Structures are given as C-alpha cells and as structure tokens.
C-alpha cells in the first residue's frame, strides 16, 4: 500500500487520477481503517488529505459556513456559533459513534462512505448543503443530494475528491433538526433517520426541505414531504400529510435492525417530530 500526504487537493486529485488499483482518501479513517483491517477494502493507494492547509477549519463563507474535509465531529460540537445556526447538522454528526469516534470522524467521510444510514447526510441534504469537488478539470460545487449513488457508492469519478462542505446562509426565522431511531440510547446505526430544515414567514412555513436516511438504497431528499408542510402552520393536517409523504417515499430493506413495515411507519413519525423541533427552533410557537 502506498501512503501519500499531498499538500493540496489538486495534488490529491492528480495522485488519485494516476493511481492503479483501489484508491482511498484518508481523513478521519473511522470507515477506511475498519474496512482495511477487516480485509473488506485493501487500498493500493491511500491518500491522507490532512496535511492540506485549511482542512481542519470551520470558517465563515459568504454568510454561511465552510467546513473543511478533515474537521472532526467533536470540533463541530465545540463550535457554538455553528451549533446555534445549524443545530440539526451538528446534532446529526454528534450522533455518530463514541467520543473516540467523534475525535476523528468527518462529515465528508460520512458522505463518501455512501451508507444509506449515514446520520449526517440527511441533515446536510435538509440544510441545502453542497460540497466542493476537486478534479483534474478544476473545482465544482455539487449539492449533497447528488453525491450518494447507492450503498457504499458515490457519483464521484476516479480522480475526484471532496475538499469541503458548504452550509448556506441560515438567515432569520429558520431552524433545522435531525432525529434517528435506534433500539438503544447510543452507539448504533440508524434504523431510520430524518432531517428537516425550514423557514417561517410569521407562523407559516415558507420554505422546507425534508430528507430521509436508511429507508432506501441511498439517502433521499423528499420533495413531496416538503410540499406537504410549505404554506401551512404545521397544524395536525399538515403533519399527517408530511408523515404520509415521508412514508410513501420509503423503499427500505428488511434486516436485523428493522422491517420494511416498521421503517416505513417510523419515517413518518420521525418526520413529524423533526419538523416540530425545526419549527420551534425557527421561532414558531406550538
């Protein structure tokens, strides 16, 4: 296995483009090293991006935020200003693994691991986050929902690497939330996850985004669920419509953690609860 520590994302992308065999980028390593040790994925080329300037920075950017590709969950949780604006995103990241995992695990790693049950990804999609993808032809900004392709797969091409996550301007009267169902209190993988972000105009939901995890081959952005609450005051009828739309979007599998029937039902329940939290955070009284 070759181990590289490039000084820029352009160099990282070039190394990956020229690499032969299995290539992995290394940030927090909480998935890459597990797969390496379990002989699931043995990279021929491992590209550690942590020597690149700015990868550990959480910075203001055009009124929103830029979160470097190697920023760990614990660093996000400790950043009070980020947590005030995007509590759903920060809480979603914080749900992943233990204190030790939080010391290393990253948003970009969670996204690129391609798990349909990734906790931070529904929160990022709901937030309207995008990522910078660096490749041979330069850097492009891509919405988070265009990255996952299926279990363990992304739409990134060979020689492409994500350098940062971008969160948009939060603005006034807005809030987000992420909830997941697990059968324990901690240290588990989502059976269902749901992210909601919305903006209010008075008591009325003016904008909304709803995302579901662990109920389909990839994390879903559910436009029908958002439409169900836009223009409402999140009354009981709107919440029921939201739950129905969320459940209708589900295409889950049966496995040891949950049945198709259970996941489909819980998606609706979590969508309601997450929407209520986001609504309260946006300043709406309930």
């Amino acid at each position: 296995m070759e181990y590289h520590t490039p000084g820029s994302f352009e160099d990282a992308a070039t190394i990956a483009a020229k690499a032969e065999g299995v290539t992995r980028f290394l940030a927090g390593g909480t998935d890459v090293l597990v797969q390496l040790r379990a002989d699931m994925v043995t990279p021929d080329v491992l590209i550690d991006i942590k020597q690149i300037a700015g990868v550990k920075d959480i910075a203001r950017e055009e009124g929103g935020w830029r979160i470097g590709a190697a920023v760990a969950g614990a660093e996000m949780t400790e950043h009070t200003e980020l947590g005030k604006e995007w509590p759903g995103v920060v809480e979603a990241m914080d749900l992943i693994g233990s204190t030790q995992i939080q010391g290393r695990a990253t948003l970009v790693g969670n996204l690129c691991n391609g798990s349909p049950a990734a906790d931070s990804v529904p929160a990022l999609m709901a937030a309207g986050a995008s990522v910078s993808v660096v490749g041979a032809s330069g850097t492009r900004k891509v919405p988070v929902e265009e990255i996952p392709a299926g279990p363990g797969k992304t739409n990134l091409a060979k020689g492409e690497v994500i350098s940062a996550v971008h969160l948009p301007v939060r603005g006034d009267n807005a809030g987000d939330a992420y909830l997941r169902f697990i059968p324990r209190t901690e240290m588990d993988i989502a059976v269902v996850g749901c992210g909601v972000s919305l903006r209010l105009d008075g008591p009325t939901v003016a904008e909304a985004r709803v995302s579901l995890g662990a109920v389909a081959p990839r994390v879903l952005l559910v436009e029908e669920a958002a439409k169900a609450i836009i223009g409402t005051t999140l009354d009981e009828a709107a919440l029921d419509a939201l739950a129905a739309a969320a459940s209708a979007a589900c295409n889950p599998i049966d496995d040891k953690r949950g049945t198709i029937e259970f996941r489909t039902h819980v998606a609706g329940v979590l969508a309601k609860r997450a929407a209520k939290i986001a609504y309260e955070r946006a300043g709406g009284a309930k």
Partner: protein
Amino acid sequence: MSMIHVSTTVNGDEVEFLCDPRETLLDVLRDRLALTGAKEGCGTGDCGACSVTVDDRLVCSCLMLGAEAEGKSIGTIEGMADGEELHPLQEKFIEYAALQCGVCTPGVLVATEALLKKNPDPTETEVRYWLAGNLCRCTGYDKIIRAVLDTAADLRKAS
C-alpha cells in the same frame, strides 16, 4: 514495501520509528515502542480499549495509522502516573475495585482523564455518555462511574 519514517511525541518524549503504511498507531505503540497499556479489543473502534489522546483529542489508536502520528503529541496510559505516584483516577479505580480483568481499564482511564480535563464537574449521565465507547465486559460499569464521579469531586475540592 518501503517503511515510513515517523517523528512524534509520546507522553512528552520525542520518539522516532519506522512503520509499514498499514500499521495502526496501536500496532506501533505495542509492537515497536513496547507500550502495551493500550489494548486491542475489537480493532474496529467499538470497544475503546485502545484509547489514547492525539493532540489532547481522545481517539481509538486502532483507527489511526502509525504514519498519521507524524508531528503529533500522543498520550497513553503509560504517561498517566507521575513516576511511582498514581493519578487520582488510578487510585480511585483501585479503591472502588472498578476493574476485574483489566483489559478495558487503560482505555477507560485515558478516556475519563480526557473527560475531567474538559469537564471537571460531569453529571452521571455525562460520564455514561462519554464512556459509551469504552466497553467493559466484567464489572458492569457502576463502580467505574462512581469512581470517576468521586475523583471529579476530590479534584474540584483540591483545586
């Protein structure tokens, strides 16, 4: 396969080693630096027996490559006692018999020391969540939690 040369700091001492790029920090600590306090329980980041600090951040040394230690400051259980004098947490773990087989103990101690540095007055719930990634299959956690809370109270009184 060529070996990677790494310069790092372990428990305040400057250390250099050569390692294979696939070796974890835990492999390096145990097999190259003879620091066998950190244990390999699962090797997948679930059990916390390999807990160390890297630049004061608690991590699983099984989920980090030795090569990544370049320029970092590593803290292990071997650096916890001051010579013959045990750390208050170590004293209290003995007093409470907060261990049986001892495999998880170094990781639990490193993790709780990191907690008390960050939060000198944790609630029981905070201690339990902080230690959710440190699995003990012997004592059932209760003595561990009580030992940590009692140490925290003592340290607050002393400061």
